[in-house]
């Protein structure tokens, strides 16, 4: 009888365990604190709410609550994003329905972000980060 493909070799098992052991240390800070604001991505091609306010160092979470794929893109080189001076651009990967993306915002000011494929139909939002 052929061996099951799903059975790990000892070497592979060791590698997998090592990766799992390293995960907590490698996890981004955003994943370790509760979100100060949660923004849903809607079937209406809108971020809901479209404007939120947090304090510097807090986390924002975006949840794709729609049937469509969306992104969170805060990169002025890719569209109409606006960042405070000194803030680094950020962007999610393409988020499937049900997926989330988190970002810690440390630089106070006003952020404008958008969904890359749906920017043209007005899918954008703002975040005000207070000191």
């Amino acid at each position, binding site marked *: 009888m052929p061996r099951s493909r799903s059975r790990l070799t000892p070497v592979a098992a060791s590698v997998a365990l090592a990766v799992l052991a390293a995960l907590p240390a490698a996890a981004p800070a955003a994943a370790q604190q509760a979100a100060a604001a949660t923004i849903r991505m809607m*079937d*209406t*091609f809108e971020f809901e709410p479209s404007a939120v306010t947090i304090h510097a160092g807090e986390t924002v979470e975006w949840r794709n609550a*729609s*049937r*469509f*794929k969306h992104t969170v893109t805060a990169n002025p080189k890719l569209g109409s994003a606006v960042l405070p001076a000194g803030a680094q651009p950020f962007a999610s990967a393409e988020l499937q329905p049900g997926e989330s993306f988190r970002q810690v915002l440390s630089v106070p000011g006003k952020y404008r972000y958008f969904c*890359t*494929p*749906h*920017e*043209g*139909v*007005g*899918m954008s939002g703002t975040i005000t980060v207070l000191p």
Partner: protein
Amino acid sequence: MNSSSLIAPARRLASRRSLIKGAGGATLSAVAISLLAGCDSMAADKPMAADPANDVAILNSALGLEYQAIAAYQVGAESGLLQKPVLDLAVQFQGDHKQHAQLLASTVTKLGGTPVMAKNPADYHFPVETLKTQADVLRFAAGLEKGAASAYLGAVPLFANKDLAKAAASILGDETMHWAVLRNAVGENPVPMSFIA
């Protein structure tokens, strides 16, 4: 490229009066009727897909975008910034969106759903303060068309029913043609990529 270099529309343009009249005045083309007929047969004769409510929700998402586009072209037409040939083109494109909206709303109803309504124009939050020239209006419209095309691209594989997917793909093609023509009108490469996203 200026307005005089626009691709001449092959079909008869809608009148300016029809632009003002609103979505209710649109009539469906033969193609739209054919697409709708496919949806009719699906609604009446075939067993429904796994989740018809899901298909209705997707149709309503698309319908909302069509109403947005109709309102956007209205803003453009009433801006006073569009020269005659460009205004005619905007009227034509708005007429297309009215046909899309009518098809989508009819289909939602036939599937037992309730079509979403158009928002008040002010609630679309169009960037009217940035529309200073004809090119501004055309770029704004091009952005809407690109976003709509992307939305339909996302919608096509989501439909459980292939007739609905086909109808959405048909509209996707139309939105993409609009986008290309608008880009061409402002001197940009009308087909800047091999695939849309």
